[in-house]
């Protein structure tokens, strides 16, 4: 990988700032036939809970203009099965693995982490924002104090990289970001999915298995970018930006808005090789601009031309 793409968070080096987002790249091996895993600086696993979760009733996916609503419901094999299946796999893995932990209580978060702490993983992304489970992490997003308490406890439990993933569905993005920083996160990531709804007008029922779901894809990019910008202005730790990124150009917008790294989610479904394409685009962009590292564009958004 080109040196120009190398970035650091704390002491960790990433070969590229492009990460696969949770829930859109499985546990990292499903696409291996067609994706060079080291095109990603890291992959984030599907959200992991202590016990196995079957997930929500189908349909779980509905497409909307330039986006999709999902109602997966944090389906996952649970921590024990996860360890059994992936402990060996991750011992020699072409890129960093970050485990997305999607739990419902402080204790569950801590138990999951305790169980997998020995694995060869880079760290954790705490999903305090999943819209798809009833009692789910969302409550941690509603109140910065609750989020603070959770992150603080997790911080004590691990020295690995700790990322807190924020929900866009509450107005206090800046407060949440600050609470996550104050409690000791190494970085924050945002946005998780927006709450969205779609109705089948023939039946009157939701088009997914729950009344609402999580909305993602290119459609959400303008809002996600705005929120990443707000978060990056608020905290001093690195911000990992995502939400609708579908091209190298989108990625650069997020860097300019203040993201130190970016994640690609839904766009992977369409273009599994998107990390390759984004890396390429960034390289060429940096060359064209005479820059020597992607970090030089972080936070360079200049606001409006008229001010």
């Amino acid at each position, binding site marked *: 990988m080109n040196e120009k793409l190398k970035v650091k968070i704390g002491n960790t080096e990433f070969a590229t700032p492009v990460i696969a987002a949770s829930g859109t790249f499985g546990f990292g091996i499903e696409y291996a036939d067609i994706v060079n895993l080291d095109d990603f600086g890291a992959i984030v696993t599907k959200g992991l809970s202590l016990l196995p979760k*079957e997930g929500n009733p189908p*349909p779980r996916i*509905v*497409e909307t203009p330039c986006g999709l609503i*999902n109602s997966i419901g944090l*389906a996952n094999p649970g921590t024990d099965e996860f360890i059994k299946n992936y402990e060996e796999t991750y011992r020699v893995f072409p890129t960093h693995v970050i485990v997305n932990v999607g739990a419902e209580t402080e204790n569950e978060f801590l138990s999951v982490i305790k169980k997998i702490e020995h694995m060869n993983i880079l760290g954790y992304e705490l999903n305090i924002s999943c819209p798809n489970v009833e009692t789910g992490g969302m409550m941690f997003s509603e109140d910065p104090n609750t989020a603070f308490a959770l992150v603080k406890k997790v911080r004590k439990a691990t020295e690995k990289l700790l990322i807190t993933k924020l929900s866009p569905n509450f107005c206090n993005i800046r407060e949440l970001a600050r609470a996550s920083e104050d409690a000791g996160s190494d970085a924050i990531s945002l946005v998780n999915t927006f709450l969205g709804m779609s109705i089948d007008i023939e039946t009157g029922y939701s088009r997914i298995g729950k009344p609402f779901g999580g909305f993602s894809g290119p459609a959400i990019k303008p809002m996600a970018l705005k929120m990443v910008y707000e978060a990056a202005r608020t905290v001093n730790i690195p911000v990992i930006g995502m939400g609708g990124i579908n091209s190298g150009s989108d990625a650069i917008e997020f860097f300019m808005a203040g993201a130190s790294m970016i994640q690609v989610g839904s766009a992977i*479904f369409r273009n599994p090789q998107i990390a390759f394409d984004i890396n390429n685009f960034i390289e060429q962009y940096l060359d064209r601009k005479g820059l020597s590292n992607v970090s030089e564009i972080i936070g360079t958004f200049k606001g409006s031309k008229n001010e």
Partner: protein
Amino acid sequence: MKRIKSRVLNNKPLSPDLYLIEFTSMGVENEILPGNFINIEINKNLDPFLRRPFSIFDTSEGTISVLYRIVGKGTELMKNLKTGEYIDFIGPLGNAYPAPESDEFIFVAGGTGIASVHYMLKAVKKNFPESKRILFWGAKNRHEIVLKEQIENLCSEVVFTTEDGSLGNKGLVTDFIKTNPNSVIYACGPTPMLKSVYEKTKMNKSYFSFEERMACGVGVCLGCAIMTKSGKYKYVCKDGPVFEGSEIFG
């Protein structure tokens, strides 16, 4: 599984709603097993955003073909693809129809289910040329019975059923199914049809190909869940699309 940037060779209507598209496959046709599907990116712009999954209707050296019905914005775009234009597909995806030895195979196809059934019919004819192959083929009307001779040639017998009676029996294809105790059943079509096939063929080995809304097609999004008899979900794109009848309906 490969990702192929392919070119359209041919794209033509077979009936008002059904089209057959053939495109280059860059050798990937050799990896394909009956039952597999591919996930197609139809357009360069972002609406529709997701790929669209289609069964493989047929392959030949260097080509794949798909039989599709116009139902929405993706297939509307697909129908306008001209010879020489690009599409991008990922595949082959999913599992395959198992092929236990037998001397009688029953095929049940509803609507575009004929695509997946056709490819399996070809394989069974090739592997068990002496076998009896009876196809129960259901459609809305006679216009939707397309490529009739080509498909009849693969079968010992074809029983047609149309909803309006314009060809063969009138009614639902499942009303006319007859099986023997040792026949192996393959079926592809709407889920209610599959359920009804299962009810009538409980004593047989049966393999059904299912559809579910898909985002990724490879098992990462967990979008295509299907409830199994055991109370656990499986995933149509990865554990399927082919399941034993008893696993889902048993």
